[in-house]
């Protein structure tokens, strides 16, 4: 199948699904399932209000700092563990041991220590993002072919130079894969913390809408978070293509 043809087929499938949904809901639908055209109408109406932007901004102000802190710490420590044996032996067993532990259970604890405001939310998001970033950076650095390191050393490269010119470029694809997982996680955890306890944000909006049976607002919040998540993922993939022009096509 050609690229254009498969794109056309996808668009056709999407439109057909939406049209089917719209048609099915014509014959009466429960209150909580809105037809797509109604959702679009409510969404466009909400785009004209201030509240949606305030909530979206509040959500992003939690997810993004958490994502940045968590992935940065994870990448740095992961690269450290992948290149230094001392760091590896101290840190990696702990990280792999606690990896399957649901990090969200720490939220109540963080709320006690850091208050119920944004700090505890940002920190729990950072904690969740740390793991995929660490594990991927670690394996990325560990997978550096020895021959490359040896030849670089033979040609007189210093330790720092080897790290910057050999280890880091080799680990970048893995690092990006980790960042992609971490970004999706940051949105999930952000939404979870806001649904559990918050006074603003998209998760708070959807809870309020649920409690007051405002189904239109529920779908507006849902669509907004979907668009934000999708846009973040696209942005990451775009920057990956810029940083890694030699790695094409892998998703």
């Amino acid at each position, binding site marked *: 199948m050609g690229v254009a043809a498969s794109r056309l087929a996808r668009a056709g499938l999407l439109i057909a699904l939406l049209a089917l949904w719209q048609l099915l809901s014509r014959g009466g639908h429960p209150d909580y399932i809105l037809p797509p055209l109604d959702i679009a109408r409510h969404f466009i109406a909400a785009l004209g209000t201030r509240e949606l932007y305030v909530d979206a901004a509040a959500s992003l102000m939690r997810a993004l700092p958490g994502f940045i802190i968590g992935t940065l710490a994870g990448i740095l420590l992961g690269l450290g563990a992948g290149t230094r044996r001392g760091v590896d032996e101290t840190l990696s067993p*702990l990280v792999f041991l606690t990896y399957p532990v649901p990090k969200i259970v720490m939220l109540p604890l963080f709320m006690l220590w850091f208050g119920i405001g944004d700090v505890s939310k940002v920190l729990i998001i950072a904690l969740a993002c740390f793991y995929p970033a660490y594990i991927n950076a670690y394996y990325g650095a560990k997978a550096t072919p020895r021959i490359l390191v040896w030849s670089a050393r033979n040609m007189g490269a210093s330790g720092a130079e080897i790290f910057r010119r050999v280890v880091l470029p080799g680990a970048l694809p893995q690092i990006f894969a980790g960042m992609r997982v971490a970004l999706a996680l940051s949105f999930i955890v952000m939404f979870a913390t806001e649904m559990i306890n918050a006074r603003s944000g998209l998760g708070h909006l959807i809870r309020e809408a649920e409690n007051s049976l405002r189904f239109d607002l529920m779908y507006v919040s849902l669509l907004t978070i979907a668009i934000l998540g999708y846009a973040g993922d696209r942005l990451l993939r775009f920057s990956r293509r810029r940083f890694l022009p030699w790695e094409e096509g892998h998703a």
Partner: protein
Amino acid sequence: MSSQILRTKYGILLRPLVVIVIALAAWEFAARSGLWSPILFPPLAKIGHELWLFVSRPEGFAQSWTTLYRAFGGFAAAAVAGVLLGMLMGRSAFVAALLDPLFSGTYAVPKLALFPIFIFVFGLGSLSKIALIFLECLYPMTIITYHGARNVNRVLLWSASNMGASRLRTLLRVVLPATLPYIFAALRVALPVALIVAIITEMISSVDGLGYLVTYSLSSLKTDRMLALVVVISLLGLALDRALVALRNRLVYWEKLDTYYV
């Protein structure tokens, strides 16, 4: 001298142990220093006591079972559906062209946002939670299985068809075993996700389960009980992961496990 001990074989086990002991000691110090309220840092003995209370009563097991039942229900359904979908996508270009954009397009969208709608559709009980766990686990299951089924060694496929194997037989005897390591990698990603989503949904809206108990003990300021629950949940996550790895090593005995992600 100490650096020599740390270099030996046991040193590899010793070092993380040292970190854990230091962390626990720091905790106990914070608890006894009187600088913070015992609500913020309950002493280890009190947490241990609550832990004992939880394990020694049948109610603790009932609540753990509620959470595990939800997590397993969604996880098992997603495992079956995800493996089927992933194999189909991996072996048929048409299905892949149809579903791949759907999965990769909605991958970064938090499915948790659907939970309020699921509550209206499936009710407040376990079903809405299981449905959400299913949806969240379906993504890693499908994507990783697809990845594995697509990368089956072509020579193996050619020889199978050369020897007259039917499509179904090739699928069962060649593609499935070749994809098995990927399937286990997918299961290993999805299992913690199942537990996390079970806990989150119980924290958001529930009257039972471990997630509910955590929020309940926090709102009644029983932080020692809350921390005991955190320990229980962590141990559950750890035990499930270990069990899965043990199962994997029995079934996929020809390949050593050394990566956590594909």
